[in-house]
C-alpha cells in the first residue's frame, strides 16, 4: 500500500484556487531568511533576518528548534523541535503568535524538517514510525488548521530533510539510514547495517520514483540535508559515521536518472578537517556551486556542481547557510552572520548576541 491518505482531498486542495486574505511575508518585515536561535538568557526563538543580517521579527519558542518550513506565500512558518520531537509549531510571523500545533500521531516522531507544496496547500514532514523503524512522510492540510491527512513511505530509514523539486510534484528525501527509537533517545541502533539513500517520491500517491545509495565503501555516510540547484541537481550533505580522520567526502550531487552520485572531492586532509560532519548545505543563486558547513570542523567548503574547485573558509561553530545575491550567508553559534562570496571570501560580517542554531531557511524560491 503506497498511499494511506485521502488523495481526493489532495487533488481538491490543489485544484481549488486558494486566495489568501493576507499580505505575504512583507507583513513580517520582509525577511530574507529564518533561523532558530538561543539568546543569552537561554530562551529559544524563531527569528527572521534580512539579507544584511538585521533582525526583522522574533518569536519565542517553547524549546530548542531545529529547522523551519516557510509557507510560500503566507508569512507563516512551521518550526520543528529537535528530533525526536513530537510537536511542531505553526507561527504567524507577522503577528508574532502561534497559530496551531502539529502533533505527531501515536508511534511517530518528527525528524526536524518539512516542506510545503508549491501552492502552500500541503505540508510534508519527515517522521519516524519508530516501532518498525520505517521512514514516513506525514501529509498535513495547510489550508485548514493543519489537520493530518495521512502519510506515505519515505523510501528508507531515518528521513531527515525533505525538499520540493522544481516540478512541484516530486519530493527529494534524505533518508539518513540510521535507526533510532525514542526509548533510547538519539542512540544509533543499526550502524552495522545502515543504508542511507536519496529518494524521489511523488507525494500524491506515495510512488517511489527513484532511489540512489552511496557505494558500499561509503555506506556509513548518512545522507542528512538537501539543497536543490539548477538543472535540477540535488546536493546532499552527509555525516560520516566512521572515523572523522578518514577524510571521506561529505557532499555529493545527483540528477534524476543518473546512476551514481558525483562526489565533491578534495585532498583528504582538507576533508578530514571537516570532522566527518556536514551540518547544512546550500546552492548559490546560480545553482551551480554548493557549500556545506561543519560546526565541528569550524569550516565551510564549497564546490562546483561537477564536484571540483573546492574552497575553504574557517569559522568556529558555523552551521546555517543560505544563498544571497553574491554567494552565501552563513551563521554560527557565536551570533555571527557572515556574507561569503562564491570563492568563500568573507565580504561582510555582523554579530548578534544570540547563538544561531543548525539551519537557515531561505525565503527565496530555489535557493
Amino acid at each position, binding site marked *: 500500500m503506497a498511499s494511506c491518505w485521502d488523495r481526493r482531498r489532495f487533488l481538491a486542495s490543489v485544484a481549488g484556487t486558494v486566495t489568501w486574505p493576507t499580505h505575504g511575508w512583507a507583513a513580517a518585515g520582509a525577511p530574507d531568511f529564518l533561523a532558530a536561535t*538561543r539568546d543569552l538568557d537561554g530562551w529559544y526563538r524563531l527569528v527572521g533576518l534580512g539579507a544584511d543580517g538585521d533582525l526583522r521579527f522574533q518569536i519565542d519558542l517553547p524549546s530548542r528548534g*531545529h529547522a523551519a518550513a516557510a509557507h510560500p506565500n503566507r508569512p507563516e512558518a512551521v518550526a520543528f523541535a*529537535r*528530533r525526536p520531537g513530537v510537536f511542531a509549531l505553526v507561527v504567524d510571523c507577522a503577528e508574532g503568535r502561534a497559530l496551531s500545533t502539529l502533533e505527531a500521531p501515536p508511534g511517530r516522531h518528527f525528524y*526536524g524538517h518539512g516542506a510545503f507544496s508549491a501552492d502552500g496547500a500541503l505540508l510534508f514532514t519527515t517522521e519516524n514510525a519508530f516501532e518498525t523503524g520505517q521512514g514516513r512522510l506525514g501529509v498535513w492540510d495547510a489550508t485548514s488548521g493543519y489537520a493530518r491527512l495521512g502519510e506515505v513511505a519515505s523510501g528508507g530509514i531515518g528521513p*531527515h530533510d525533505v525538499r520540493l523539486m522544481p516540478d512541484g510534484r516530486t519530493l527529494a528525501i534524505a533518508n539518513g539510514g540510521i535507526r533510532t527509537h525514542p526509548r533510547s533517545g538519539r542512540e544509533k541502533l543499526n550502524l552495522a547495517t545502515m543504508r542511507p539513500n536519496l529518494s524521489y517520491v511523488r507525494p500524491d500517491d506515495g510512488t517511489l520514483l527513484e532511489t540512489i545509495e552511496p557505494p558500499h565503501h561509503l555506506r556509513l555516510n548518512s545522507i*542528512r540535508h538537501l539543497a536543490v540547484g539548477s538543472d535540477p541537481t540535488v546536493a546532499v550533505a552527509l*555525516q560520516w559515521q566512521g*572515523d572523522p*580522520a*578518514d577524510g571521506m567526502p561529505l557532499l555529493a550531487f545527483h540528477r534524476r536518472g543518473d546512476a551514481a552520485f558525483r562526489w565533491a572531492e578534495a*585532498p*583528504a*586532509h*582538507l576533508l578530514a*578537517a571537516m570532522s566527518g*560532519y556536514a*551540518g547544512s548545505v546550500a546552492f548559490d543563486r546560480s545553482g551551480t556551486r554548493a557549500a556545506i558547513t561543519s*560546526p*565541528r570542523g*569550524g569550516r565551510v567548503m564549497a564546490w562546483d556542481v561537477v564536484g571540483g574547485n573546492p574552497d575553504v573558509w*574557517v569559522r*568556529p*561553530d*558555523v*552551521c546555517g547557510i543560505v544563498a544571497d545575491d553574491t554567494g552565501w550567508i552563513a551563521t*554560527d*553559534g*557565536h*551570533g*555571527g552572520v*557572515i556574507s561569503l562570496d562564491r570563492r568563500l571570501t*568573507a*565580504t*561582510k*560580517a*555582523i*554579530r548578534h548576541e544570540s*547563538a*544561531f*542554531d*543548525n539551519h537557515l531557511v531561505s525565503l527565496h524560491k530555489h535557493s
Partner: protein
Amino acid sequence: MKFLAALLLLGFVVGSARAEPDHAAAADRLLSKVIQPGTAAFEEATATLRQAAAPECTDVEPAALRDAFHGAWDGWMAIQHLRFGPLEDESRSLQIAFWPDSRGTVGRTVSRILATENAPVEDTDAFAKLSVGARGFPALERLLFDDSGPVPPDDAFRCAYAAAVSADLERVATEITAAWNGPFAMIWTTAGEDDNAVFLAPKETSQRIFVVTLGTLDETVQHRLGTPLGTLVAVRPKLAEARRSGRSLRHISLILDATERTLMTAFGPALEAEDRAVLADAYASARRDLDRVAELGDLPVALAESRIRVEVLQQSIERIAIVMRAEIGPALGISKGFNAADGD
C-alpha cells in the same frame, strides 16, 4: 537586618567579580608573550634543522641532525595548539605534522617514495606541493628512525629527502611568523572592529584561545593516550605518536607546558585566585602522573609495564579539560559553541 545587608553586600561582590574580562588585553598578552616568541623560536629551530640536514649530504652529522630534529619538533609542540589563522591557513599545521594519522598514510607514503626515489627532493616549490603525508615531522621521523632506533641518513636519496623535508618545514615556519608579525597580528588585535570579518567581537579571541587549548587537551586524552591504550585485549603501543624517535611522552609534557602557559598568560589576570589555583593543581597532578609513567620508559614501554599508570595520566589530563569546561569557561563567559557540541 544586619544579616540581610551582609547578604546583599555578598551578592554585590560576587556579581561584580564576574564582570566581563578584558578580552583585548588577553589577546595582546598572548600575542606578545606566547605567540610571537613561540613562532620566532620555531622558525629559528627549523633554520637550524635545515642547516643540519645540509642538502649536499656530504657532511651531515647524524647526531647533530637528530638533535636539530628534536629541537625543531619541540619548538612546534610549544605552539601547535594555536590552530587558527596562520597555523590553519593553507592547512599549515597539517603540513608540519599530519596527525592523527589513523590510516597510516605517512608510513605508506614515505616507504613508497623511498622505494621509487620518485619525489622532487631538489625542487623546493614542487616538493611543497606533495601531499601532507610525504612531508612534515612524522615523515622526517621515518627518515631518521626506524623501529629499532636511529637510522644514519647515509643513503643519498634518503639524505636528500630529509633535507627537503627540513627546508620545507622552515618555509612553512617562515610563513607562520610572517603572518603573526603582520596581517594576522592586525586582525588579532582589532577583534570586534568594523572591518574585522574574522573576530566579530572582542570575546571571540578569548573564545578561540579557549577552544584550541581545550581541543589539544581532548586530542591528547583521546588520541595520544587513548589510541595506544586501545582496549584491554587490544593494546596498540605502535600507534603512540612519535614513538620511533622516543618522543611520545615528551609531546605530552610539552603540551602540558604550552597549554598551561597559554591559559595563564591569556586568562590568569582575569581569573580569581581560586580558579587559578584549581587549574594549577590540575596541571601539577597531571605532571606528577606523567612522571610516574615516564620513569618506566617511553609510552610503548610504559604501557607494557603498567597500563594503570597510563590510564591515571589520561584521567588527570581529562581533569584539566573538565576544570576548563566547568570553571574557567564560565568564569570568562565563554564556551565551546552551540552547534559543534551536538549533531543533527
